[in-house]
């Protein structure tokens, strides 16, 4: 976005501005040349713009002061007294100084300011390659793209790795299939066809058969328990019967030894015992009521009862033995009953459809009598081993096919991945090639543009010296390192620092600065060049100034400070393209008045003003017009190589110069003056200089009489003569020169001499012979 041209800069108490200083910019002029002797305050103006744009004061940096902030305010002023204000149409931007920083308001209006000082001019040239890169990197810094480039390389690396892995696994899978094929006896023509066919085999029937065989084994195993259980029950019965027989024998013996009514007797004795427990000392026998033998009755009853104890024990044993026999018989019955179900289950499993046809089975069914099972089991004992083997075979077969399937799938997947990566990788490699190439082209082009711009600027100042072929290249072996070279004596790439003079290096430094500044939003940039003409050789100054005039047009505004006096004189005489230049002259700075401006205007303008005064002064007009006429004739006689008398220090008078423009030349001197109409069409109107020169030759004495010396003769001259002389000189000068474009010095056309922009074309090109 183009920023508006500045109108006014106000500096208050910054550095040399002890009093508020106002620099008004001339409307429509993009270049302000601030001329002043050393110590007139030029650098303060530059400091003010840098303070506003960049928040610093560069002129006192690197002078061993350390932190320079304390020295920014004018002597005796506080930081809070400092302010710089830049006004544009209807807007202003003000910078003030706080204790620690520069505050700008509004921040959006803060101007973009680039400052180059004489002391910095060689910075870029003399800097090491890395520092040089730092200065230029904003134009070529593509680190964001470079980061993505690194990501791309990473992606390529990981794809390469993935491809290697896929190929390795593919080979492993292929080998696995090959092994399976070999193990299977290499059926068919080759591995893959066989593997494909095998993998499609239905493994569900094998699994079903294996399961049926498993059930058969389990059903068979169930049967084994029943003969054991029967045997155990029989054993228990046998033991119980033995106990019973013994108890019965013992009881018979015991009973024989006792009376037949012994049982009743025992009952009676136990009743008496119970009675005697309640009545331990009876008076009479409770049974016969006899008093005889009543003493010791209780003891005698107990003795008799003891003789019946063995009988009771034998009876108990017999009873238990009978119970055990009964239980054993019941258990045998239960086992015989329970074994029928697993027997039926086994018979059912035997005839299951899913059982392999070749399964070996018992010749006979499970015997109905459990007692025959043992023999039957013995006769069929080999069968479970065969069933287990058959089951294992079937299970291994299913497992094999599952593994084969897995290997085949992995083989195909890895093959597919490898093929996909085979397509992807070259594409990615193509992409990296494009990215690298584009980056290189872009960076080279950016550097070439900078180098070309530098070269063009340099050539404008030093035409034909053959030093214009500037090269700026990135060192490929070092990151962020910039080499600078120039063609010297036909040798390209020579470091300028090694071969260029100080003056040439200064120019080169300035050209680099201008070329870079012009690349970064020039229409928003206020360019400040502080006293940069210091060491430029005199022959090159005019071209440098012309170059600066041209370059200034690219920027929002350009301010050049200088103490180069000829610039002032050239401006005064309109030798330069003054059209876009606003010339400001500063007087000597004083602590009391600070920075002060005096007006400088070209002499032709001054003559015009004198002639327009209400009471024109003939003497002053004659003097001013005479000097201007001398300048015009000096220009013409030099341009056409006219013959003038030789004098020390080339002190020519009008009497020498006017006749030198002889009749032939005078007649031939035609100036085409450019006119642009309202529609923008350019036309030239021709004006002959001969009438002006003839008239001036006629009245030239007026100048000598009025404008140079005191002379009585002047008493007889009319004021109108002096004014006529002044007007004719003004007409001649207006025809010959353009106050904006200067004098017609450019002979590039080969047929006429032209001002900048060809606003004037002076004919002839050479003096007629």
């Amino acid at each position, binding site marked *: 976005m183009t920023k508006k041209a500045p109108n006014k800069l106000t500096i208050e108490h910054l550095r040399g501005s002890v009093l508020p200083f106002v620099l008004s910019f001339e409307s429509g002029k993009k270049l302000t040349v601030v001329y002043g002797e050393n110590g007139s305050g030029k650098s303060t103006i530059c400091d003010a713009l840098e303070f506003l744009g960049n928040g610093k004061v560069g002129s006192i940096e690197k002078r061993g002061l350390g932190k320079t902030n304390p020295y920014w305010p004018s002597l005796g002023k506080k930081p809070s007294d400092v302010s710089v204000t830049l006004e544009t149409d209807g807007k202003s931007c003000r910078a003030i100084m706080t204790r620690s920083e520069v505050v700008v308001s509004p921040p959006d209006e803060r101007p973009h300011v680039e400052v180059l000082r004489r002391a910095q001019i060689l910075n870029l040239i003399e800097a090491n390659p890395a520092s040089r890169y730092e200065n230029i990197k*904003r*134009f*070529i*810094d*593509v*680190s*964001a*793209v*470079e*980061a*993505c480039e690194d*990501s*791309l390389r*990473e*992606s390529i690396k*990981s*794809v390469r790795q993935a491809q290697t892995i896929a190929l390795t696994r593919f080979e492993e899978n292929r080998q696995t299939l090959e092994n399976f094929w070999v193990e299977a006896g290499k059926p068919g023509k080759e591995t893959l066809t066989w593997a494909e066919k095998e993998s499609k085999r239905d493994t569900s029937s094998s699994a079903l058969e294996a399961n049926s065989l498993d059930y058969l084994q389990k059903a068979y195993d169930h049967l084994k328990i029943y003969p054991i259980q029967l045997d155990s029950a029989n054993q228990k019965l046998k033991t119980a019967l033995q106990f019973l027989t013994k108890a019965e024998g013992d009881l018979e013996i015991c009973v024989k030894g006792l009376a037949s009514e012994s049982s009743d007797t025992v009952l009676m004795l136990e009743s008496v015992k119970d009675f005697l427990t309640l009545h331990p000392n009876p008076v009479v026998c409770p049974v016969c009521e006899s008093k005889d033998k009543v003493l010791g009755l209780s003891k005698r009853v107990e003795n008799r009862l003891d003789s019946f104890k063995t009988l009771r024990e034998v009876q108990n044993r017999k009873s238990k033995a009978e119970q055990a026999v009964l239980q054993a018989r019941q258990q045998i019955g239960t086992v015989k009953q329970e074994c029928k179900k697993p027997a039926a289950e086994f018979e059912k499993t035997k005839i299951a459809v899913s059982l392999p046809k070749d399964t070996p089975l018992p010749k006979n069914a499970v015997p109905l009598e459990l007692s025959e099972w043992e023999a039957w089991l013995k006769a069929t004992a080999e069968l479970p081993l065969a069933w287990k083997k058959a089951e294992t075979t079937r299970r291994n077969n299913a497992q094999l096919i599952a593994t084969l399937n897995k290997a085949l799938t992995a083989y195909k997947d890895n093959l597919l991945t490898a093929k996909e990566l085979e*397509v*992807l990788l070259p*594409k*990615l490699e*193509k*992409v990296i090639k*494009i*990215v690298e190439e*584009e*980056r290189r082209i*872009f960076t080279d082009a*950016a550097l070439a543009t900078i180098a070309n711009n530098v070269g063009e600027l340099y050539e404008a100042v030093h035409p034909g010296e053959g030093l214009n072929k500037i090269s700026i290249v990135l060192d490929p072996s070092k990151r962020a390192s910039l080499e600078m070279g120039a063609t010297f004596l036909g040798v390209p790439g020579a470091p300028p620092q090694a071969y260029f003079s100080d003056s040439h290096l200064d120019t080169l430094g300035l050209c680099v600065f201008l070329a870079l500044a012009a690349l*970064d*939003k020039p229409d928003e940039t206020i360019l400040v060049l502080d006293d940069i003409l210091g060491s430029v050789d005199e022959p090159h100054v005019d071209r440098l100034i012309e170059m600066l005039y041209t370059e200034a047009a690219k920027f929002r505004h350009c301010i050049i400070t200088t103490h180069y006096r000829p610039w002032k004189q050239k401006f005064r005489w309109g030798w330069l393209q003054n059209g876009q230049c606003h010339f400001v002259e500063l007087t000597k700075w004083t602590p009391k008045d600070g920075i002060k401006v005096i007006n400088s205007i070209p002499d032709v303008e001054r003559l015009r003003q004198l002639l327009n005064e209400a009471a024109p002064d003939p003497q002053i007009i004659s003097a001013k017009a005479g000097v201007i006429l001398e300048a015009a004739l000096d220009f013409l006689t030099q341009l056409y190589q006219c013959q003038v008398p030789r004098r020390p220090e080339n002190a020519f008078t009008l009497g020498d110069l006017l006749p030198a423009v002889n009749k032939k030349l005078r007649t031939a001197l035609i100036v085409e003056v450019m006119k642009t109409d309202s529609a923008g069409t350019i036309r030239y109107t021709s004006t002959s200089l001969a009438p002006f020169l003839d008239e001036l030759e006629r009245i030239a004495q007026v100048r000598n009489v009025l404008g140079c010396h005191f002379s009585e003769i002047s008493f007889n001259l009319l004021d109108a003569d002096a004014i006529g002389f002044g007007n004719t000189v003004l007409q001649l000068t207006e025809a010959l020169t353009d106050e904006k474009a200067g004098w017609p010095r450019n002979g590039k056309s080969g047929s006429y001499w032209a001002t900048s922009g060809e606003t004037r074309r002076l004919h002839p090109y050479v003096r007629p012979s």
Partner: protein
Amino acid sequence: MSSPSEELAKKIASKLVTAKLILPEDEVPIATKLSEGQLKPEDWRLTIEKGIDAKVKA
């Protein structure tokens, strides 16, 4: 004025489209991510694969 990265990113994205390495609809997103340094390895792969897939389908 666009930054050098932005300018270069546009050129690269355009070249990749011309070389049929990425899809035209990916040109702007790729240029944006490139200029911001935001293209990760997986982004590159995905974008190029998209281009390959589209070619295969065509």
